[in-house]
């Protein structure tokens, strides 16, 4: 083998190794939760949770009130950081990452209270630039274009000068999603995105989220919406993972009956031919209400 051939072979080997490394990185989970526990005043809220989120997945966290859904998101977002266990983002312990780095890669659509002061839709969407800007940097033409594109993609161009507080709940959620687009994040986290929204806006928001082709982690109450829009579900109860997997695996009537404390049935929607879960109110519930009154 000539020297040139040897060099070429070495180069090919190096390239193959690099490709394998890149594949290993891209194939490794975007978010890894290992043995996560968190307690408040000796009360365990999250109990040894472990799961991964892979790139491209739309994962819904479901469960009854008090199951620990929002606490889990708050730990991932580092609003809570006195937890036990490890949360890794892109193979790095999230605690070791700067706030700015996290903000460049993870965007959040939170449940928000109305702001006290007036802010326009553009003002709120523009906040998405913050993780990329140094202190005295001004807005560039590219930034303006990014904002305009995000507004267009979320159907907000006509509302850009409106006051944020004057918008409906669904429109406010869209503004926050537009801000997430400006953030150019890899992972979008949504906390109860359909809360307080009517049926039209519930579907509009979730369709929008799905159309963005991002990796998504959301908490969601409506199990049928979760089934329609998520590619994978994680069922939580009392801070523990009860089920994690494909929607059909998780939305088992017996499992849901146990967790939600109500008789549950699965029926096939005659129009869409998809599975729907249906809970039946019990006389026991009415009895509890009467006794409380």
């Amino acid at each position, binding site marked *: 083998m000539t020297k040139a051939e040897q060099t070429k072979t070495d180069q090919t080997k190096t390239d193959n190794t690099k490709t394998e490394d890149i594949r290993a990185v891209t194939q490794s989970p975007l978010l890894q939760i290992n043995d996560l526990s968190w307690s408040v005043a000796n009360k365990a809220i999250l109990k040894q949770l472990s799961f991964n989120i892979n790139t491209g997945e739309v994962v819904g966290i479901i469960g009854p009130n008090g199951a620990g859904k929002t606490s889990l998101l708050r730990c991932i977002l580092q609003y809570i950081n006195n937890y036990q266990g490890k949360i890794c983002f892109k193979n790095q312990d999230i605690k070791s990452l700067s706030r700015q780095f996290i903000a460049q890669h993870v965007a959040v659509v939170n449940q928000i209270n109305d702001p006290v002061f007036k802010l326009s839709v553009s003002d709120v969407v523009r906040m998405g630039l913050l993780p990329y800007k140094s*202190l005295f940097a001004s807005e560039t033409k590219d930034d303006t274009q990014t904002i305009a594109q995000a507004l267009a993609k979320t159907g907000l161009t006509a509302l850009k000068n409106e006051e944020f507080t004057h918008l409906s709940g669904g429109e406010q959620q869209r503004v926050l999603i537009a801000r997430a687009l400006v953030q150019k994040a890899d992972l979008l986290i949504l906390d109860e995105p359909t809360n307080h929204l009517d049926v039209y806006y519930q579907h509009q928001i979730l369709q929008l989220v799905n159309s963005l082709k991002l990796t998504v982690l959301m908490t969601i109450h409506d199990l049928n919406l979760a089934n329609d829009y998520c590619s994978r579900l994680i069922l939580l109860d009392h801070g523990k993972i009860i089920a994690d997997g494909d929607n059909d695996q998780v939305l088992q009537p017996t499992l849901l009956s146990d967790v939600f404390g109500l008789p549950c049935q699965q029926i096939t929607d005659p129009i869409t031919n998809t599975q729907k879960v249906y809970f039946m109110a019990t006389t026991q519930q009415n009895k509890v209400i009467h006794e409380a009154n």
Partner: protein
Amino acid sequence: MKLTNISLLLFILTLISIGLALTFGAANISSTQLVQCLFSQCNSALNETILWQIRLPRVLVGFAAGAGLACAGAILQNTTRNPLADPYLFGIVSGAGLGATIASIGFNDQLNIALPLAAFLGALFSISIVFFIANFVQRIEQLLLAGVAISFMLGAITQFMLYIGEPLATNRVLFWLMGSLARVEMTQFYLIASVVIGAIIVILAYHQHIDALALGDENAISLGVNVNKLRLLMLALCAAITAVIVAYCGGIAFVGLMIPHIVRHYFGSSTLKLIIGSSFIGGCFLIWVDVIARSAVNNLELPIGIITSIIGSLFFLYIMLQGNRSHG
């Protein structure tokens, strides 16, 4: 309206206010004489002294103090998400009052230096207590309540010292607490202006971070903002602005509360517009309050703190009634 247009308009308004305010006072200086004095030669030495050593420092300090107090109020409101936050709420003026009282009673000889210095140290003392408490509070509302409690505590100590102190010292402190620009000099303008301008530059650097707080602390954290550090930095800047103004001008209430309220109404609440609007409008407001203070009553100078309090309280009653009418 675009920010550059707003800034230009307010700058012109400021120049007009400064020019007109220089013509008011006990001595009669016409606008022609004023232009002559400013841009070529004064026709009399007396006019030159009055203009350069009395009126100009007074007008400039009035502008800097008004701008500083309005900005301090605006930034406290935006960082605490509370439209009623004001430098006075954090006990800064009560601390300054206590310092001034101690100086008046204890250092009668060098009062020109001792009083502003003690007032400044008193303001820093009160804000240090608020900072100390800030380490233990969970919510921003608790910090505001702590500020109110400290304000009352220091106020009570001041009143006790005045009650048992000699009447002359008591009078001096009471007049100082009412606020006045009568004794200001050009050196004080340089000091106040450098603190106010320095603080405004830092605030403007962080304007987007402060805006991110508007939708809640967690919202700001998710955008990469270190909320606690930002809030402490802004509190420190407001304390520095207020302390240096209170030390030389005494107590001037309501500017920090009222001006940002007006600016929000016309320009919106984004920090950039709010700070630029509050600086110019707050500055012009205090210039004109000072004009009223020295020309409303013949041969009597009114304390500006009294005038700002009257205007401020009437303004808030008006806002409240307007609000009721629009809701009713």
